[in-house]
């Protein structure tokens, strides 16, 4: 099934480096960065696809909370940033 999550909690994933210029939900500062899956949420439609379709119901896509360390993102900082990302934006890391 397309909406089955392929990643699990604690798994390391990379946000794809170039999501593109279209309407999407992958903030620029995490593109190309590696983080850890901390939540596997119920699958939901990819906003990119919903917008491209003119607002129609689209297939659900696995949806995750991915935690990035500030020192990985910015080279410094003792904190983390958790971003909600659809599987479309992710690949397995390492």
């Amino acid at each position, binding site marked *: 099934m397309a909406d089955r999550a392929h990643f699990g909690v604690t798994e390391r994933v990379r946000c794809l480096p170039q999501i593109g210029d279209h309407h999407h*939900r992958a*903030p620029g*500062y995490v593109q190309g960065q590696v983080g850890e899956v901390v939540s596997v*949420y119920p699958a*939901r*439609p990819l*906003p990119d696809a919903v917008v491209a379709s003119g607002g129609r119901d689209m297939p659900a896509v696995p*949806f995750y909370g991915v*935690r990035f360390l*500030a020192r990985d993102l*910015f080279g410094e*900082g*003792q*904190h*983390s*940033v*958790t*971003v*909600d990302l659809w599987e479309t934006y992710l690949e397995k890391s390492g």
Partner: protein
Amino acid sequence: MSDAHLSVPAAARVRRLEQAVIDAGLATDEELDAILETFLGRARPLNGARLIARAWVDPEFRRRLLDDPSGPLSELGLPSLGPNQSLRVLENTESVHNVVVCTLCSCYPVGLLGPSPSWYKSDAYRARVVREPRAVLAEFGLEVGAEVDLRVWDASAELRYLVLSCRPTDTEGLSEEELASLVTRAGMIGTAAV
């Protein structure tokens, strides 16, 4: 937002947008009014504060609120979330502090917090709290020690966050209603202790 329409009052711009939606046959005036009443008419920070106060006094409610807020929301008669929206409650502890931002726009649980403060929508907050949250929180008057696990959550339109702060000390004698009056909008965003 472009600067081109800044001279037009916001209400007039909103009305133009509503008229375009109506003209396109997407909704009627009555439907738009009903939506606004549902999402904004009852939207105020006291809604979120009631959730927090109940969680402080009722461990079972707290557990369910952290697990899935939809049941607790309806139990307290609070406004439901918008269509295709989920809520997650983030638990502060002595060793974990959570703070919420939406870097892509300014998403947050309007029904529980009321309209967002202007700083929440500012470029400065959205850019800086991701990169240097301790400095930003210090400017709000909240010192978060280096030993605390500081977690920034970047919200989206689909998933919104509410911070469950730590119950202040010396509040044992207070009623649930009195406790709710201690909870602030900033506390539920994570830029204040409570």
